[in-house]
Each structure stands twice: as structure tokens, then as C-alpha cells.
């Protein structure tokens, strides 16, 4: 489900995500494809979690208002930075239902740059490792 409005709680999460880690890991590519001025929150089911350098990826199956589903690729930082922020390779498993907030792609395609996540147990995770210059 796409939750278009950014809620105050999400704003706090986004701020937390940006405030963590004074020394971000290397996002080694441009973030020009993302619209950093916007955030979109989506609710979906984890299809795949790629714990890889230089970026980790969440593939989230998200249904729109008409029930049509789409795969949302969501880019995170590398495992090094994520580990320091409490992530592990097993944090997300296929079938898990999560709520993710991203900076969306500019082109209007589905997918985006990870900002924060709420796990099924309510635990909140952020990622500030995608902000190095490139």
C-alpha cells in the first residue's frame, strides 16, 4: 500500500536517519535520480533483501489502490554502514511485511533511496550511509 502523506512520526525517523553516523560509508554513485525533497512511504512485503556492497537492496512488493502490485527496488548503503546502525543480513526476510519510507525516483518509476523502515514488531531502522559525495 502506498501511503502518500509523510507523517510526523516518519519525519522524526527521517531526521534520525540523517543524524546518525558522522562518518558515512561510501555511497559511490550519484543520487541525482532521487528526489531528495520528497519522501514516499509504502507498505509492502519483502521479496528479497540483498546484503551487498557497495549498496544493499530491498525488493518490496507493493500493492496500489487498485490491488495491482509492483516491485519497488529500494537502495540502501553497504553492509558496513548498516551494521553500525543495527542492521544484519537477516534483518529482513522474504515474506516480512514492512513499512518503508524512501526518496522516490525523479522519473516517476517505482523505487527510491531508503530513508527509514518499520519492522513488523514496530522496531524502527534508519540508514544514513547513502550521502557521500559523488
Amino acid at each position: 500500500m502506498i501511503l502518500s502523506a509523510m507523517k510526523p512520526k516518519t519525519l522524526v525517523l527521517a531526521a534520525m536517519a540523517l543524524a546518525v553516523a558522522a562518518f558515512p560509508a561510501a555511497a559511490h554513485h550519484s543520487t541525482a535520480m532521487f528526489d531528495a525533497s520528497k519522501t514516499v512511504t509504502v507498505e509492502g512485503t519483502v521479496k528479497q533483501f540483498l546484503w551487498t556492497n557497495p549498496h544493499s537492496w530491498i525488493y518490496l512488493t507493493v500493492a496500489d489502490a487498485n490491488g495491482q502490485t509492483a516491485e519497488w527496488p529500494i537502495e540502501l548503503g553497504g553492509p558496513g554502514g548498516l551494521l553500525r546502525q543495527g542492521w544484519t543480513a537477516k534483518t529482513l526476510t522474504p515474506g516480512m511485511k514492512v513499512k518503508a519510507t524512501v526518496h522516490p525516483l525523479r522519473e516517476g518509476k517505482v523505487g527510491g533511496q531508503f530513508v527509514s523502515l518499520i519492522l513488523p514488531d514496530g522496531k524502527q531502522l534508519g540508514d544514513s550511509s547513502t550521502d557521500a559525495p559523488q
Partner: protein
Amino acid sequence: MSVSSQSKVQIAAALTAAFCGALLVLASQHAAAQSAAIPPLMLPYGSGWSGGIGGRTLAPPESYLPPDYLNSPEQLQAAIARGVPADKVKAYLQIRESNQLLPPESGIGPITDDPAHPFFNNGMREIGKPSTVRIAGLDSEAARNLKPWALEVVKKQNALALAGKNVEARHARCWELGVPGILEVPQPLYFIQTPDEVVMYNGWRVRHVYMNVPHSKNPPLTWYGESVGRYEGDTLVVDTIGQNDKSAVDAYRTPHTTKIHVVERYRVINGGKGLDTSFTVDDPDAFYKPWGGRRPRFLLPNRPLNDMDQICAAGNEDHFDLGLDPVPQEATPDF
């Protein structure tokens, strides 16, 4: 033994001792001179010459950026033309340098961004500018220096980038970069200095510079070519030929041919706080005239080598279908 024979032996022994002593003095003087002549580009473990990644504000700009760049009216004007607020220009110039080639002190410089489509790297959000893609400025001395075929290559890349395609720099796609293209990468640069060879390690890429030897007559064409080096006072001079034509000289994809000849100069400045890096490029089949640029770096302690020793290719597919360069793959091993 006669007195006269004994004297001869004593004289010979004295002469031998004097000769050996003189040799020892000369050798120690030579060693001292040698060690004094070799600039300490190689840093203690844990330190690197940062190109700016994640650490763009960790060093004062004056500690490593050339004053003629930081205080240039031309650069100030260029920044303002790109919509940079006047009070953010110095920060802009510092962040800009973290992954772009700077103009030389004089003469023709590298291709820069189109003022109508200013390039802001990820770090520019510090000055309130969201990240944009690189579009080469074609109304410049550097662009007019391109041979027609080379200009067409840049125009083609501009068209792709304007359409939101192929917007990543080659190094983000795990390609080898050639020289001077490798100078743009933001990862820390490390040197290993030995009398016969200087090894340059720069974000999983390795270059070998063979010291005090001439170039081969016909070196095989490779991504980084054949580099030979020498010290000129406090400067390491690296001379490179023999590159293949698969790389670009910058992230605007400015091409070159196998005739490219690059000379780089590395010098530690400001008491070890900065690394001044300048270069010249000559390629008569791609450029009308030789040109040059700079790419200063700053000393970054507490940055062990393995912290940046990333795997590039894993998980680096074109997940968003943006027409990116494919990550290079080899179907058969080269051994």
C-alpha cells in the same frame, strides 16, 4: 721483513683504510641525500590522501586547495552563475573538488559542467543544492579543444544524461578508469614507495610506477598504460603512455586515443596536510592542444585501507533501469 717493506705495508694499509673510510662517508652521504630527496607520499598505516568522500569538511579548504582556485574571481563568477549563494561559494568550491578535476594554474583545463545544467554532487546538499547529473559545457575553451569526433562522443553522453540515462560515472559502474580519469575518484589514495617502484592504490584500483627507468619501446596497451617515475626535488613525476582507448579522461566521458601521454606531478604541501596533484594531457588525435588540470587531496587520518576496500560489482546492477553502463564481466579467466 725489511723496514722498507714494513713501511710499504703500513702505507698500503693506511691508504686502504682511508679509501674504505671515504667510501663509507660517500655511501652514508648518498643514502642521506637519497632519503632526503624522496618525498614522503607514503603515510603511516591508517592515513590516506582523501579525495573528499564522506570527509569533505574534515579539512580546511585552505590546507590543500590552491589559493588561485579558492580565491579566483573566475571561479566565484562561475559559482554564482550556477546559482550558488555568495556566502556558500567557498564551500561549493571545496565540495565540487571532491570528484571533479580542477583547472590548471594556466592554460587549457578540463571539461566542466554546463552552467545551464550545473552539476551538484551528493555533498552539495550541505549548501542546499540537490544532486544533479553531469552535463558537459560545450561553450568553453576545453570543449573547443576537442577534435570533432571527441566532441561528438561528449555530445552523445550529454543527450543520454539529459534524458536521464547513463547518468553514472564509470567508476560507479566498476570500470577501470585510465589516467587521468582515475584522479577524479573520491576514494582515498595510498602510496607505497620503494626505490624501484611506487604503487598507487586508489579505491580497489592499483597502479604501478617504475622508477628511474625509460619507457618501453612498444608497451602493450592496458587500462593504466605504462607508468615510469622520477623525483624532481620534492615532487614525484609520473609519465604514462600505452593506455588503451576504452577509458575516458573524465566523468563527462571525454574520450582519448592510444596516443594519450599523461604527466602527473605529486607534491606534499602545507607541512603534510595536503597533496598537490597536477597533470598534463597530450593526445594529438583527440585534442588540438595539450591541456591540464589539478586534483588536490588532503591528509585524512583514521582511515585504514580496508575501510574503503569495497567490492564494487556485487549488487550493482541497473536496479532502476536507467540505461547505466554494464558492470564489466569476464566470461573467461585471463590466466
